[in-house]
């Protein structure tokens, strides 16, 4: 497999951060709003309720037979443990996206690129720490191009509780904006491209 149009992603953090929802939004964006294909395999059980938590996401233009991710092209790390555990598995020339206040990046393989964002701080500025995963999704959409920003934004609206759409879209846009500026070589972040 591993066609050029297939992306394998691991999103990891700890329970309660909305790791699975973040993966779900990417999958929804791809399937429902871009008419592509996606699979999401989640770690489940006690893990999803406090401890470490991760989702394996595959996005593709074609139906996906094999939904598991051994060597992801992209790792979204939302906790130190997630970084320690999964960064070594990144595929050659892979991409690390991380929450920079929660993850201290060290000993990164030279072939990898990385982008950090203070997603928790941005969420706190919106007075809802819980939207950090949505900030992260906006950021991921902007820096990876995995899913179109429009599709991802629609998926956010489609996935969050009624009445919280505005808050979440704002969070998404903040993350997205941060990512765009980072890529453009703007002030924010410590991207090592």
């Amino acid at each position: 497999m591993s066609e050029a149009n297939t992306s394998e992603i691991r999103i990891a953090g700890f329970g309660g951060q909305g790791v699975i929802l973040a993966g779900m939004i990417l999958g929804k964006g791809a399937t429902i709003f871009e008419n592509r294909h996606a699979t999401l395999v989640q770690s489940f059980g006690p893990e999803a309720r406090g401890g470490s938590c991760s989702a394996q996401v595959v996005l593709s233009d074609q139906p996906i037979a094999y939904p598991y991710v051994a060597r992801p092209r992209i790792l979204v790390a939302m906790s130190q443990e997630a970084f320690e555990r999964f960064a070594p598995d990144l595929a050659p020339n892979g991409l690390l996206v991380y929450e920079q206040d929660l993850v201290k990046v060290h000993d990164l393989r030279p072939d990898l690129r990385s982008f950090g964002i203070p997603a928790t701080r941005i969420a706190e500025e919106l007075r809802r720490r819980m939207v950090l995963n949505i900030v992260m999704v906006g950021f991921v959409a902007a820096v990876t191009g995995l899913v179109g920003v429009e599709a991802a934004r629609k998926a956010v609206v489609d996935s969050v509780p009624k009445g919280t759409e505005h808050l979440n879209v704002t969070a998404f846009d903040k993350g997205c904006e941060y990512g765009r500026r980072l890529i453009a070589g703007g002030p924010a972040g410590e991207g090592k491209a």
Partner: protein
Amino acid sequence: MQADRIGVLTGVHFIDGDFAAAEGAIAAGCRFAAGYPITPSTEVVERLASRFPFVGGLFIQMEDEIASSIAIQGAVWAGAKAITVSSGPGISLMAEHIGYAAMTETPCVFVNVQRGGPSTGLPTLPGQADVMQARWGSHGDYAIIALCPNSPQEAFDLAVTAFNFAERYRSPVMLLLDECIGHMLEKVVIPPADEIEVVPRRLTEKKPGDYLPYLPGDNMVPEMVKAGMGHRFHITGLTHDERGYPVMTAAAQEKLVRRLVDKIRLASRDLALYEARWLDDAEVVVLSYGITSRVVHRAVEVARERGAKVGQLRLKTIWPFPEHLIDQLLGGRVRSIVVPELNLGQLVLEVERTTRGRAKVVPIGHAGGTVHEVGVIVEAILEAAK
């Protein structure tokens, strides 16, 4: 997305297999569910509990799986299409009532989202070790239909099919998911209601006095009835005659039990749902079902790239075991059948039985908890192709 009048959630969704199975049940006209929480199946009833009040359905969380598995049968005899959902330990508790459904010819659907066993095993991790339990889990001789989806889309599709088979054969039907399929999210396209074939309950049109609840009709299947129609019928788990009255003789036993088994066994060709790839030039065939088939898909691709003449046969219907498909495979090029499954050798026993020495059968057991490594299956294919 708004459900239409009768609850079919037409549209494109990104949902897991558990939710998809619940939507399939609703689309098939199921309006009664009883269940008891157990990982990894709970999402099915959670979905039903939230959706049913919008579509005229009712979910009740019973005190245990035993109660759930018989409450649905009460509901069926009141006229509803009904479902219960569980996983390994809960299915073990339901075992007696799977037999009761078979004996009383109560059309209903049991969902088992398989986890690692035995006993409490691996609640949050996959297994496929309830395959023989699905076939033989209750005591006595009976036959059953069991379907095995390998994607959330198919969890939807086969949930509809499960209800249709249940009605057509007046039989319990097992929908065997596994934790992977149950918890994996993927695109699920739910068609418009009028594009979904739904088999309605075949209630008798006979007058009270003329109707016999166990008089075999087409394909050995008796017509259905429900309480309150005036037939004053009797249903029992005891061996019974065509009136439904208990008859404690060997002759009655022979007549009834043979029909119960034959009505499913002899319908095997009609019930057999499967998918085949690359069988034309295959010397090795990998037979699989459920989540394992998706690992096999990758493995077969890799093995073919390496020159192996290998094909894939994926069973959606595992019970009754489609013997004719094995027969069709053999007699030509096929020398080996490789059977990976997340158990230490269950369905492979059927493959060995039906192959009767005409090909080499290679089991690839795995105790569960995760899926096979692709490489393990590739190696087995290459070895078999030598």
